[in-house]
């Protein structure tokens, strides 16, 4: 890991450590928790979009798998929440591998179409199987506990989310500089060149896609336990778009960009309440303007302007 990257990680840790002491009330604490959870999801998705150059338009589907695994398995089968979380992640990973394996042998951005289809099918299934999932109304999620200790207060959840985020940032930074990360970056530069120097392109793409799906499912479970309730909305197409937008606005292939994207877009709906009824319009306009004027995203563009590597 480069020193500049370490420096960034220290700043992230410092901000996370100080934040709960400066936040005025529980509303902001809740916002911070959701920002941190989104940031972890976006980190995973950014590895796929930014490094493998593939876009997933159904990532909320994987989030939904995790969220509903944590809701359905403990409720209907009495499974321990930790096991349920693991089962969800395994299912998401398996499904991702199953769908992506044939896709990655093709050239072009077919993953976008396949994930789009997968996400919509999952969402429809969640809405229809009301006996298991509560249908469009959703269902409650039991609290998360380990060895007699139960996570309940927002404070506790904040430290859990902050710890998860720190570990994820650290892991992403390491991953990018590992041989695996170098192979991914080569692949994004030129697939043919990467193949010529011996990178198994299809296998690396598959690995990163499965990883990001597992990431999403785990964080889906965490969100479900934190909120205490799930609805099919977690898995809908619009949520997938939101996640992709976080990646793109923050900056593709930028670890800190992912954090910035997640923070900004999680705060955006709060900021847009002033535009009652116009939220969708403003959201769409921001997307377009960002892509037209800042095609590389906020963090890489600003970093280039101030002459520092991000």
């Amino acid at each position, binding site marked *: 890991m480069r020193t500049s990257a370490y420096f960034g990680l220290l700043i992230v840790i410092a901000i996370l450590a100080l934040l709960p002491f400066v936040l005025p009330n529980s509303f902001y604490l809740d916002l911070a928790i959701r920002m941190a959870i989104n940031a972890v999801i976006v980190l995973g998705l950014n590895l796929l*979009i930014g490094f493998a*150059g593939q*876009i997933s*338009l159904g990532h909320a589907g994987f989030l939904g798998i995790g969220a509903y695994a944590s809701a359905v398995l403990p409720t209907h089968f009495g499974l321990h929440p930790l096991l349920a979380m693991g089962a969800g992640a395994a299912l998401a990973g398996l499904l991702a591998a199953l*769908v992506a394996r*044939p*896709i990655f042998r*093709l*050239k072009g*951005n*077919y993953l*976008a*179409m*396949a994930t*789009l*289809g*997968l996400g*919509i*099918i999952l969402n*429809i*299934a969640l809405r*229809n199987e009301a006996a298991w999932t509560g249908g469009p109304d959703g269902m409650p999620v039991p609290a998360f506990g380990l060895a007699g200790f139960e996570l309940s207060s927002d404070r506790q959840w904040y430290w859990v989310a902050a710890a998860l985020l720190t570990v994820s940032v650290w892991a992403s930074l390491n991953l990018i500089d590992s041989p695996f990360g170098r192979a991914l970056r080569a692949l994004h530069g030129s697939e*043919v060149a990467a193949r010529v120097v011996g990178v198994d392109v299809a296998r690396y793409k598959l690995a990163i896609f499965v990883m990001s799906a597992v990431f999403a499912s785990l964080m889906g479970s965490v969100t479900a336990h934190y909120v205490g309730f799930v609805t099919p909305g977690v898995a809908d*197409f619009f949520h997938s*778009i939101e996640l*992709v*937008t976080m990646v*793109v606005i923050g900056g*593709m292939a930028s670890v800190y960009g992912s954090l910035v994207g997640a923070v900004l877009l999680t705060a955006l709906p709060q900021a847009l309440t002033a535009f009652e*009824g*116009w*939220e*969708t*319009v*403003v*959201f*769409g*306009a*921001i*997307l*377009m303007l960002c*892509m*037209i004027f800042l*095609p590389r995203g906020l963090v890489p563009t600003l970093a280039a302007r101030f002459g520092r590597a991000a």
Partner: protein
Amino acid sequence: MLAQFLQFLFSGVTVGATYALAALGFTLIYNASNVINFAQGEFIMLGGMLAVFFAQSGLPLPAAMLLAILIPAGVGVLIEKLAIEPVKGAETVSLIIITIGASLVIRGLAAVGFGKGTFSLPAFSGDTPIDVLGATLMPQSLWVLGVTAAAVGALWYFFNYSLAGKAMLATACNRTAAQLVGIDTNGVLFLSFALSAGMGALGGILIAPLTLTAYDVGVMLGLKGFVAAVLGGLGNGLGAVVGGLLVGLIEALGAGYISSAYKDAIPFVLILLILFFMPRGLFGARLTERV
């Protein structure tokens, strides 16, 4: 038994015609620019909503329809000029996001302008169903099929016998070569957005009397049109039409015989199967990538 099958067939082909028009829209824009326009569904929605709006404000139906096609075409051109042309050559991911942003803006404006209720357009020639071997066929279905066939025919004529159409084909085939022989490829891009938005809007108007319309119908209609375009082989005009009809048919038969609750899921199961087993679609060309 036969009557039931015919019933599914009629409804499938009717909806399929709308998917076919949407798929043609995807194909036109994809050929001119390699952009997959995720705002295509919003043109369908705009067509239906504007037709309702103009018809309710007292315009005769043909005039309302004409306006409901021209305005979305103008919106399409606006998107091309303001959002697609400035970023030409950007990554696929960026282009997909721009069109998604455009779709959100259009849908949001429609929700603000028309409200979030559902609207219906009166059928073009009455609601007396026609009895065909025990199945009922709405006169509007005939309108949908007839007008769609006429539009497809006109488009075919345009591509084969007009200079502008041939210029579009040439650009789709090889953009640089087209530029070298003096074709205004920006003009082609402009035209393809106008045409594809107009096609989508036409589909939206035709289907509105049968299915009701609302500010958010564009998402599903657009995505299914996209499935149809992929099924036919992305970039192939004939494929788009056949793909649209097939998707409509499979959806109607699946909803009728398997599960109506999963009706909307059927086209997306289809797209996964296509990608696994025949990624070039029914009529797609074999491509080799040059390095």
